[in-house]
């Protein structure tokens, strides 16, 4: 391999990128904008659930009970509704996502010392939100019941309410959230956004860059030149890897400075591992560009093989262990999951090469395979 020729190809590519000002600026703007938008907007916290109450009872007890929900920061009270028919309409139009229906005689039954029933309706269109909503409802209901029983006990046995409370709740659950003490979603999200963005943008840049030569025909200059396959690919991809490397740094700065995500790991290790990942995703772009002939196809194929897997099979929204067997298999076949381990490890857990070497190794192997396949499939003598 002749270094001079590699440099020449890389320099030519670099000039071409820089001269296309819109493209050049988008190469840096797109990742940063995505980071900002997602960082602010992609909150998985289920809060302010629009919610309504149907109260057929109109008693002090029913109002007290409803108030426990109205008061909660998880629910955004939209008002009392007359009956269930009206409620059905509101749920169908997504004006409310949850509602409680308090039947008649609710207060009477409670005052008589008997149990009472209440119905909660939850919009199940988005299952994961429905689950979380159910969790809130159960928790609020349980604490209401504990309070009732504790007060009952306090009166019956003549003990202070605090003592009675402890008696009905003999076991406390002390939860410690590791790695993300305040369960802030931006902390767990921002590092994974790095993974998503670096999964999407390098292949796009690369695939478009290579296929552009094919489609415009300028690749025939390469076919007829003394540049070998390896030299061409190295030189061609080098500027894209360089741009992506700068993007790693920019995204890292955004995460740590703007979103104030703690970075507990080693910076050098992180940069090195990220570079391997970027080379890997650039390799995906290379694979795509070898397979397709037109830039349209390059864009579509890249979008499908990167955007959707980066979101679904990487652990950013859904943790890998929660995936079904087939999806888990896909996740293990893609590089995103391994890099997720690395970013999460570097940012939140503060573990280094000692714990993450298998992931780094797999990424490196992945990159090697992609480049080898890309190399063997790229021909200087096109078949047709």
């Amino acid at each position, binding site marked *: 391999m002749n270094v001079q020729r590699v440099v020449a190809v890389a320099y030519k590519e670099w000039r071409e990128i820089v001269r*296309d000002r*819109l493209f050049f600026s*988008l190469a840096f703007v797109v990742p940063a904008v995505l980071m900002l*938008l997602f960082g*602010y907007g*992609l*909150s*998985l916290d289920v809060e*302010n659930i629009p919610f309504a109450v149907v109260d057929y009872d109109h008693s002090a007890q029913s109002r007290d*009970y409803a108030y426990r929900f109205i008061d909660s920061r998880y629910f955004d009270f939209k008002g009392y509704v007359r009956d269930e028919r009206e409620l059905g309409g509101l*749920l169908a139009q*997504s004006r409310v996502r949850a509602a409680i229906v308090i039947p008649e005689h609710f207060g009477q*039954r409670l005052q008589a010392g*008997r*149990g*009472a*029933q209440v119905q909660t*309706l*939850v*919009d*199940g*269109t988005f*299952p994961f939100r*429905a*689950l979380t909503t159910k*969790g*809130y*409802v159960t928790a609020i209901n*349980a604490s209401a019941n504990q309070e009732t029983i504790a007060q009952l*006990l306090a009166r019956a046995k003549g003990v202070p309410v605090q003592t009675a409370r402890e008696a*009905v709740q003999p*076991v*406390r*659950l*002390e*939860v*410690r959230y590791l*790695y993300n003490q305040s*369960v802030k979603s931006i902390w*767990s999200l921002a590092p994974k956004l790095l993974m998503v963005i670096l999964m*999407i943008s390098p292949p*796009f840049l690369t695939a478009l*860059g290579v296929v552009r030569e094919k489609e*415009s025909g300028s690749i025939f200059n390469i076919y007829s030149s003394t540049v070998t396959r390896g030299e061409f690919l190295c030189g061609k991809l080098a500027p894209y890897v360089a741009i992506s490397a700068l993007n790693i740094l920019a995204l890292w700065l955004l995460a740590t400075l703007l979103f104030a995500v703690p970075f507990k790991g080693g910076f050098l290790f992180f940069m090195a591992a990220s570079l391997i990942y970027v080379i890997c995703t650039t390799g995906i772009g290379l694979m795509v560009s070898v397979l*397709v*002939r037109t830039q*349209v*196809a390059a*864009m*579509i*194929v890249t*979008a499908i093989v990167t955007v*959707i897997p980066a*979101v679904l099979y990487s652990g950013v929204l859904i*943790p890998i*262990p929660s995936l*079904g067997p087939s*999806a888990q298999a896909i996740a293990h076949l893609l590089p995103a999951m391994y890099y997720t381990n690395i970013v999460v490890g570097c940012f*939140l*857990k503060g573990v280094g090469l000692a714990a993450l070497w298998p992931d780094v190794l797999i990424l490196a192997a992945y990159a090697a395979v992609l480049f080898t396949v890309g190399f063997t499939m790229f021909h200087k003598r096109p078949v047709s």
Partner: protein
Amino acid sequence: MTRLDLQVWGRRLAVMTKKEFLQLMRDAVLLVFIVYAFTADIYLAASGVTLQLNHAATMVRDLDRSAASRELLGRFQPPYFRLDGELASDAEGLHRLDDGSAMLTLDIPPQFERDLATGRQTALQMQVDATNSVLGFLASSYAAQIVGGYGLEVGLKQLGVGGGNADALPVVDNRIRVWYNPNQNDAWFMGISELLNIITVFAILLPAAAMVREKERGTVEQLLVSPLTPFQIMFPKVISMTAVILLGTALSLFAVLLPGFGLPVKGSLPLFFALTGLYIFTTAGLGLFAATIARNLAQVGMLTILILAPMLFLSGAWTPPEAMPVWLRQLTFVSPLHYYIDIAFGILLKGQTAGELLPLIGGMLLLGGAVFGFGLYRFRRQFG
């Protein structure tokens, strides 16, 4: 305008549409990927991804080893939890959490049973890996239910209230009913939202790329010197791509989602297809708008990511719009997907009719008209 004029106008539109179809059909790789995206990709997403806490790997450290501690730990059962054995030391627990082989650990303090018997409040310690904040929340919420229920049983038994029978107490039994997707079947949600994602990707990319390709190759000059109006150049691209995407949608509904996952179609399918067509048209307008800004395909590729990624992520399917900052929530109103997602889920799962969806349809029409008109205006200015 005479009848003849109209005929010629229609003929020109038809010829241009045919040309677009031919161009698309000749890109074999692209076609294969379109079919793949509408079938296999949707199948994988619907079958493999679940958002529920599923067999969370739980390790326990039982320092009491009593009947009571075993009883409590025994309640951490599948499907939510899976007991993976005992820990020999705290350090091992931390290590297991670090390398991700355990998601949570439970610590039972010594003298747990004695404390319970003497009525002293005791604590169960739980450490949760909260790198995924949603899962961390679900795990602690389910654990709180288990511990709370257990504590109440023990407490009531000891106090001799109600004979341990909660029914004889004035407690509220909150029955939760989930509408539209009673079992929170993730396949329905994932299948539909993946379909919407794919439709969006194609609806933006295909027309945008088709438009810019003409610019890049210079064939647009030919079209401009022909008697075609800008509308007649732009519109056939949208018609042909809409037709292809609608075919793909039908394929994935009738070949994958309906037979494979028992998706119940509550509303009218013709209405669904009609509105899908309208949505594709609207979104294509966004793509064409991007195409008027870009000069080559590489630029349009980056611009479409900039439009596409926020649309997909912030559509409201993954992240509840209620949890977004206000400025971002307002921004989602200019995203056609924001309307379409409620329309699609509304027709397919909730069985809504055109009348109920009127505001959403209106919003989409308005947006589509505005964007398409603006794209046309820019195109005229550029070449007129």
